[in-house]
């Protein structure tokens, strides 16, 4: 089980910002597929250019394993300042 967080535009598209996912798929790809299964707009947004993921608050590649992970964050392109 893990907490999934969406930020910025992704949360607006999904209509939620935080959700428990149980059981957690084995990989980040699998989690993306699961989250987008009933929400084609979110699926599209998660596949968008510049979307990055963090696993337990560390940036991860899209092929990363989710074994033992407690928190997954999906982050659209960043813009501060």
């Amino acid at each position, binding site marked *: 089980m893990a907490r999934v967080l969406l930020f*910025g535009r992704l949360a607006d598209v999904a209509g939620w910002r935080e959700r428990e996912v149980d059981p957690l798929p084995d990989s980040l790809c699998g989690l993306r597929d699961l989250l987008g299964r009933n929400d084609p707009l979110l699926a599209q947004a998660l596949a968008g250019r510049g979307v990055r993921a963090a696993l337990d608050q560390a940036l991860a590649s899209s092929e990363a394993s989710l074994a033992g992970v407690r928190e997954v964050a999906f982050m659209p392109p960043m813009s501060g300042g």
Partner: protein
Amino acid sequence: MIRLTREPFDPGEALNAFCAQRAATGAIASFVGLARGTSAKGPALELEAYPGFTEREIEGFVAKAVERFELQDAEVVHRIGPIGAGEAIVLVMTAARHRRAAFEACDYLMDYLKSRAPLWKREFGPDGGRWVEPTEGDLADLTRWA
């Protein structure tokens, strides 16, 4: 070196504190980003952070800037949450022995914050909110430091 705040902050007060007691510093560069005016009521923009992660990522980047430009010190103050027109969004300050390093490091940190720091900005206009993504210009700016 990094402070996120939901409340308005005072750039001048922060600058004076940063300038104080620096016997070896000759040069302090700084940058203030202000929320531009809007025709809509309410806040001009809103910034979202990923608590904990955002601070650590920025802190790590500030440390890289300190090393790269041989700074004596650097500090970032960044608003999060709703921000009114005319209010300061961000303050970056860099202290160095000479001005070139201070200027370049301040510029470098702003380029980073604009397109690489885990912050998400929504601007409110007459047609409602719009999430801002780094412009082509912001991304081109980043290549200056590669």
